[in-house]
């Protein structure tokens, strides 16, 4: 199963949205995680139901918090605490905000959609993500439609970043976050780019594109299941116990 963990859709019209979801199916995705930019008075559930009706793909929701200060983050996390059926993601380049976000149990992932921001990811943050079992989401959308020298520079940034994460690839997620329909690339192509250009092993590339996004969705499904009534607390049957 291939999952695109970051689908930008809020600025699109209904027909464009339908077309975009069709393109995702065309390139080989089975499930999508739609991005919802955080706003205090937004009804995320109604919006998600609306887009779920527009496509036959499995669509899940992810609320993205973009706090400017630590206070903003705490306030936003308080406001989204009732949305346990959504994944919570934090987008920031501030080291202190990232540290608080990673240590908070309500946050599932941190996101870096711009490759230029990847130099803010330090080995300390990676280590913290690993111990807290959180995910780090990256995107290659900036790589398309630019000149060769600019692309070389971005490749260098990605290569530098991947060399830091190399031993901790269980935390990496690839989420497209494509603005235009024509920036969408299939999961198979992304895995091949990671192998052919950044010299990762095929196993590692598949982990980033396939198994880690699956694990990411499983967090949500487990939380939604009737056996789990709060994070980390699950009812197990007597039979299983024995």
């Amino acid at each position, binding site marked *: 199963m291939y999952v695109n963990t970051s689908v930008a859709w809020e600025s699109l019209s209904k027909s464009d949205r339908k077309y975009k979801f069709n393109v995702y199916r065309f390139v080989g995705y089975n499930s999508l995680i739609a991005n919802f930019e955080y706003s205090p008075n937004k009804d995320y559930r109604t919006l998600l139901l609306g887009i779920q009706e527009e496509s036959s793909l499995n669509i899940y929701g992810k609320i993205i918090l973009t706090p400017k200060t630590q206070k903003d983050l705490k306030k936003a996390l308080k406001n989204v605490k009732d949305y346990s059926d959504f994944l919570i993601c934090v987008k920031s380049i501030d080291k202190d905000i990232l540290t608080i976000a990673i240590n908070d149990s309500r946050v599932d992932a941190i996101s870096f959609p711009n490759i230029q921001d990847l130099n803010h990811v330090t080995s300390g943050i990676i280590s913290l993500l690993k111990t807290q079992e959180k995910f780090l989401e990256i995107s290659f959308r900036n790589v398309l439609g630019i000149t*060769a020298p600019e692309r070389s520079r971005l490749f260098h940034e990605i290569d530098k970043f991947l060399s830091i994460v190399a031993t901790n690839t269980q935390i990496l997620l690839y989420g497209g976050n494509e603005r235009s329909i024509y920036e969408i690339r299939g999961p198979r192509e992304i895995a091949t780019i990671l192998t052919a250009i950044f010299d990762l092993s095929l196993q590692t590339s598949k982990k980033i594109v396939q198994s880690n996004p699956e694990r990411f969705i499983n967090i949500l499904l487990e939380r939604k299941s009737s056996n789990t009534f709060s994070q980390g607390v699950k009812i197990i049957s007597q039979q299983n116990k024995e």
Partner: protein
Amino acid sequence: MHLQRQRYVLFEYIVENPEVRITEKDVIRVIWKTLIKLFGEYGAYKTGLWMIEFDPSLKCGIIRCNNITKDRIIATIAFISSIKETPVVFHSIKTSGTIKKLKEIQKQFFDKHR
């Protein structure tokens, strides 16, 4: 030295403006251009790239390369963003070692999806 075997890659594409007529030559030119841009002239000649078949009505085609550089070809296809200044999305469907098998897959795929 590794023994080189041939691989056939089946690909398809979608175009923003369906009125733009895309020919086999246009596709070959854009693949070579992107390949040279990404891997240089040396890397490009090593791939042994050859267009075997192209079907503008189904918007798909088959290209031949070798087993060692197959990944480079798929990566190159992913980096194609426009043909004749029209945005496109290229997508590789399947890779096979024999053209006969790939044509069977192509037939099954297009019967199922179109």
